[in-house]
C-alpha cells in the first residue's frame, strides 16, 4: 500500500534546502575576501564584497519566496513543516552574516591608505575569521546531515572565537596614546565584533538543526542566563 507519492514536492523541498545551505558557501567566500581586504588594506576588494552581497540577498529572496509558495500550495506538516520553518530561520541568519561582512568592508576605507596596523591584532582577527569559516562549514554539514551532536559542537567552536575577540579588546586597550593608532584599533574592534556575530549566527543555524531533528527549540546557550 505504501506507494511513493509527492515525489515532485519532495524534490522541490530538497532543492530549496540545497539552495538555502548553498548561501553559506557564498558567505564563506565573502568572509575570505573580507579577511583579505583587512589583511592588505584592500579598499577595492572591500568594495567588491559590498557589491557582491546582492547575491546573498538575492538567494535569500528567491528561496524565501519559494518556501512560502510551498507552504501555500502543499500544506506541509511534521518533519517537512519543521524543515521549512528552520530553513526560513537559516536564510535569515545567512543574510545577516552577509551583512556583517558588508559592515566590515564599509569601515576598511576609514583607516586610510597606510594605517598604523598592529601585526598581532591583525593576526588575531585573521584567526577569528579562519575559525568562523570552520563554524560556517560545520553548521552547513550539521544541517545537511541532521547531526545534532555536530551542531552542539558549534558552541565549543564559538567559544574559541569569543576568546579571540576578548583578546582583541585587550590589545586595543593597550595600543598606546597615538590618535591614529587608537582610531585604527577601534575600527578593527568593530570588525572583530562583526566576525564574532557571524560565528554566533552559525550557532543559531545549529539550533535549527536540533529543531528539525527533535521538534524542540532550545537555545544551546542562553546569553541572558549564562550560568544555566
Amino acid at each position, binding site marked *: *500500500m505504501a*506507494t511513493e*507519492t509527492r515525489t515532485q*514536492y*519532495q524534490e522541490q523541498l530538497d532543492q530549496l534546502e540545497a539552495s538555502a545551505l548553498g548561501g553559506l558557501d557564498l558567505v564563506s567566500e565573502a568572509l575570505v575576501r573580507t579577511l583579505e581586504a583587512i589583511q592588505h588594506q584592500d579598499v577595492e576588494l572591500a568594495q567588491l564584497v559590498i557589491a557582491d552581497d546582492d547575491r546573498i540577498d538575492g538567494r535569500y529572496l528567491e528561496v524565501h519566496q519559494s518556501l512560502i509558495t510551498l507552504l501555500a500550495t502543499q500544506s506541509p*506538516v*511534521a518533519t*517537512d513543516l*519543521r524543515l521549512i520553518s528552520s530553513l526560513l530561520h537559516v536564510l535569515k541568519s545567512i543574510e545577516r552574516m552577509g551583512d556583517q561582512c558588508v559592515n566590515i568592508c564599509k569601515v576598511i576605507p576609514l583607516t586610510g591608505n597606510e594605517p598604523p596596523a598592529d601585526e598581532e591584532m591583525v593576526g588575531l582577527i585573521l584567526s577569528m575569521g579562519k575559525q568562523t569559516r570552520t563554524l560556517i562549514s560545520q553548521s552547513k554539514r550539521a544541517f545537511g546531515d541532521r547531526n545534532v551532536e555536530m551542531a552542539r559542537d558549534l558552541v565549543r567552536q564559538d567559544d574559541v572565537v569569543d576568546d579571540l575577540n576578548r583578546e582583541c579588546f585587550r590589545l586595543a586597550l593597550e595600543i598606546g596614546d597615538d590618535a591614529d593608532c587608537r582610531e585604527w584599533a577601534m575600527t578593527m574592534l568593530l570588525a572583530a565584533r562583526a566576525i564574532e556575530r557571524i560565528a554566533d549566527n552559525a550557532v543559531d543555524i545549529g539550533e535549527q538543526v536540533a529543531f528539525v531533528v527533535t521538534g524542540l527549540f532550545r537555545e544551546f546557550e542562553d546569553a541572558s542566563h549564562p550560568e544555566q
Partner: protein
Amino acid sequence: MDSRNPTESPIVTEQNPEPQADPRADLGHTRPMVSVAGEPAAKPAKRGREIGNIELQGLSAYYGSNRAVRNVSLGFDSAKVTAIIGPSGCGKSTMVRCINRMHEEIAGARSEGKVLLDGLDLYDPRIDIVAVRRSVGMVFQKPNPFPTMSVIDNVTAGLRLTGASRGELDDRAREALVGAGLWDEVKDRLKAPGAGLSGGQQQRLCIARALAVDPEVLLMDEPCSALDPVATLKIEELIGELKERVTIVIVTHNMQQAARVADTTVFMLNGELVEVGPTDEIFTNPNDDRTEQYVTGKFG
C-alpha cells in the same frame, strides 16, 4: 460480552436537572436514557448535563472473516473533538460505526471487545439499541435528509418517537436548528422539503436532526467530503461550537481539517491504532514513522 450485576452498572441518566437559563439545558428533561433493560433508571441524580465519554477496550470488528479493526483500545475525551485519520480501508469508519452499533447491521459483520459510554457497556445484551443510537448520534458523508419530509419534520423525526407534544417538538426543533447554525437560513421555510436545501444546508440539517434528540456523542463520518469549501468551513466552525455540549468523533480524509478542528488526532493503519496524540503534536512532530509518512503525504 460482560454480564456484570446490573446494580453495578453505572447508568447514564438525567434526573431532576437543575433549572437553568440556558435553553439548551432544558433538553435535559427528555434526555435519552441509556439504561440496562429492567433496571429502574432511578439512580443517583447527576447534576447538570452529561457529555459522554467513550472508551473502546480491545475492540475488533469483522466483515465475515476479514478483521477490519484489530484490538483497538482508545478513549474519546468528554466534550472534545477527536479526529480519526488513515488511508482508505484502514478501518476508521468501521471503528466509528461500532460506537453506535451500526456496524452489526451489515450482513456477516460482528465485533468483539467493549465500547463503554460513561462506563456503561453498549454491547451489554440487556441494552436498548435504540437508546444507544439516541445517545450516540451520527452524521454521514453524504447529507441524507428524509427526502419526502419538510425541514422541520426532518429535525423532529427522531423526537416524534419519544411522544413529545407538538409545542415541545417545535421548541426542540428550533433549538436544534439554532445549534446547527441553520435557523436563520431556514426559519422562513420550515415547511419546505428538506431535500430542497443546498448540500451544506442539508448536512447541517442532518446535524440538527442528530442534535434534536440531545445525544452525548456525535459521530461524523467524513461530514464535509461532499461539500464546497465555504460549507465545509461552516461545518468546521459548528464543530467548534458543538463540542461544548457533545463529544465529537470525526473521520476525515482531509488532513488540514483534522488539524483545524480536532483536539486529539488518532492515526490508524491496516485496522490498527498506530498513534494517538494532541493534534498539534501529530502534525508537527509525530512519534511514529508511519504517522509521519502518512501526514506528510508520502503514502496513502
